[in-house]
């Protein structure tokens, strides 16, 4: 249920004293009226301690407003289209004419306008996030056919629009609002307010404006995607109790009236291919589970599940073991189980975990769960590192096992490890931004970076942005660290951001990074803008190894000769990325 206008106005008034966390620009051709208020209030409900400032352009000039957005300080631009933005004759505030031989002219005009808008949006997206909302209202007057029969002109316009949106969806930093998702919140018949549009220029009902704003804010400021899913088996991954009926007695197909389980398996496969970690927590005997997971008709690859925790003990203990193997926090994980009691037990032991019921006897609710899982794990793009994640987790487990009880430095020296540094500012930059914004433990100060701030870092001539990758005989971890900073003064490199994925701990990659910076950036001093957070204990441990004792918030300096003395001999090869 969306906010009412009165609630939104109250929320915006209450936020006047809060710090402005984000700036947005609303680019539309209609009178913006209530939409900025709903955008601000929606943001407030997601980030209660912060405010969103929204500016907008002029009535009736969408293309001009996109140019005004370029000059604005906003880190995100919402482009909200309606049909009359493509040609004024496609709106109620114009008298057309749109019929007869003029239809071809309207279509040609709309095509030209779409091309101009695409160019303006692409230019905007070079330096900030752009969220595009396609027309959400209908214009029912373009055609000679009866209302229930789509006219050729209407279908031509729809076809042009879909092609245009498809091209935009592939542009970096452009996100297109899913019309189906909006339809679920705001029925088509209840969106338009023609009385209001004719009187004021604002075309939406309050209910639709509220739903639209909520969807736009969710797209611009999504919650970080979850990283792992732990699933139950009996009556969840499959129908039936495998311990009672055997591996061949459990089902997941339409023919066996168990289709909802097949849909669930297919979604898990899709998630795993996008880099989501999957694991199993089941109260069962291991041999029957292995037999069922070995079935060739399973719709998800059994090898995608790691670890598989099968025991008769409390499920929360299985979850604990899985979290340890993954080395991720509970609040990044979703558990799916058909047993409310198991879910409650897990919630009690793992604060912050998302525990969701699987309800095979209620297919509608089960389908809602699948949609919710897509939302929880969805991300704007699947990166190369996502495909490496499972392999690197498995390798990390082998690594940890082999390293136990040994002299760590001696062990690392035998791994044939290579740390690769890539200072090319465009290569793989989406992965680097993702790392900064989702890494909590090894993190210099916990600060996040917006799309527009990131674009500024990449464009600045004196900035240093380096991605760090690692490989050894256990396999490749991909890009697992990033440092961002600038040459503050001669001989001094100041780091504003430094993160390292927890998958890469215990390999002294941190020391290798410092050695690389001293060796390639012409600096004798590295300055760190450090801030203690609730979760960056691993970064504090590095500071301890470097014999630095910081206050909770401090500017720290590492001198080159001090570093070389305390770091000692490092175990891996340093490699400069080809082309860098």
């Amino acid at each position, binding site marked *: 249920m969306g906010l009412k206008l009165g609630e939104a*106005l109250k929320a915006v*008034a209450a936020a006047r004293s809060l710090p402005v966390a984000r700036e947005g620009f609303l680019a539309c051709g209609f009178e913006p009226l209530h939409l900025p208020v709903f955008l601000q209030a929606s943001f407030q409900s997601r980030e209660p301690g912060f405010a969103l400032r929204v500016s907008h352009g002029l009535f009736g000039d969408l293309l001009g407003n996109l140019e005004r957005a370029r000059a604005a300080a906003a880190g995100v631009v919402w482009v909200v289209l309606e049909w009359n933005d493509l040609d004024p004759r496609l709106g109620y505030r114009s008298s057309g004419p749109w019929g007869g031989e003029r239809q071809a002219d309207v279509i040609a005009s709309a095509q030209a306008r779409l091309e101009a808008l695409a160019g303006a949006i692409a230019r905007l997206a070079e330096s900030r996030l752009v969220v595009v909302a396609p027309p959400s209202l209908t214009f029912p007057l373009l055609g000679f056919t009866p209302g229930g029969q789509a006219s050729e002109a209407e279908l031509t316009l729809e076809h042009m629009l879909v092609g245009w949106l498809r091209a935009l969806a592939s542009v970096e930093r452009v996100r297109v609002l899913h019309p189906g998702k909006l339809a679920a919140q705001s029925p088509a018949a209840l969106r338009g307010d023609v009385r209001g549009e004719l009187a004021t220029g604002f075309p939406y009902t309050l209910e639709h404006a509220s739903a639209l704003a909520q969807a736009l804010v969710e797209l611009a400021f999504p919650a970080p995607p979850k990283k792992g899913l732990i699933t139950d088996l009996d009556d969840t991954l499959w129908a039936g109790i495998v311990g009672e009926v055997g591996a061949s007695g459990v089902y997941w197909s339409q023919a066996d009236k168990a289709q909802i389980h097949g849909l669930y398996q297919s979604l898990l496969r899709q998630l795993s291919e996008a880099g989501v970690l999957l694991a199993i927590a089941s109260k069962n005997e291991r041999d029957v589970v292995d037999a069922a997971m070995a079935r060739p008709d399973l719709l998800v690859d059994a090898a995608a599940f790691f670890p598989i925790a099968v025991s008769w003990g409390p499920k929360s203990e299985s979850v604990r073991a899985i979290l340890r193997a993954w080395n991720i926090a509970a609040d990044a994980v979703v558990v799916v189980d058909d047993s409310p009691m198991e879910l409650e037990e897990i919630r009690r032991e793992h604060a912050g975990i998302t525990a969701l019921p699987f309800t095979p006897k209620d297919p509608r609710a089960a389908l809602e769960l699948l949609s919710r899982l897509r939302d929880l794990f969805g991300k704007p793009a699947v990166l190369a590192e996502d495909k490496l994640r499972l392999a690197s987790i498995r390798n990390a487990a082998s690594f940890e096992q082999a390293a136990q009880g040994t002299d760590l430095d001696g062990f690392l020296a035998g791994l044939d490890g290579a740390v690769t540094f890539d200072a090319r500012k465009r290569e793989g930059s989406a992965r680097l931004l993702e790392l900064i914004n989702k890494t909590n433990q090894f993190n210099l100060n916990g600060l996040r970076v917006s799309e527009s701030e990131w674009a500024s870092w990449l464009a600045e001539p004196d900035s240093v942005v380096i991605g760090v990758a690692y490989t050894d005989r256990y396999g490749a971890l991909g890009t697992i660290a990033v440092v961002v900073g600038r040459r503050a003064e001669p001989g001094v490199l100041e780091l504003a951001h430094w993160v390292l994925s927890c998958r890469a701990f215990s390999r002294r990659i941190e020391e290798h990074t410092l050695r690389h910076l001293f060796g390639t950036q012409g600096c004798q001093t590295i300055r760190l803008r450090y801030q203690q957070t609730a979760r960056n204990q691993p970064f504090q441990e590095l500071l301890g190894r470097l014999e630095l004792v910081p206050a909770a918030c401090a500017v720290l300096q590492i001198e080159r000769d001090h570093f070389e003395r305390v770091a000692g001999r490092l175990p891996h090869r340093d490699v400069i990325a080809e082309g860098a």
Partner: protein
Amino acid sequence: MDEIESRVLECFSNVFPSVPRERLPSLSQAAVAEWDSVMHVTLLASLAEEFGFEMDYEAAEDLRSFALVVDHVRGRV
């Protein structure tokens, strides 16, 4: 102040949060710089939402004081 006046007051308070609440019952557009055409429409929309009627924007064009708004709402509910 009866129930209609209280609810109208709430709408005014939401739309003009910088005006002290005690001034609202005597408020007129001439006395409030931020009561421009956009805020006027916002006020009308807020009233329509609060009282559940469809706003006639043309008829409501001249509702430029708290008192006139209360009279209009009384005539609509």
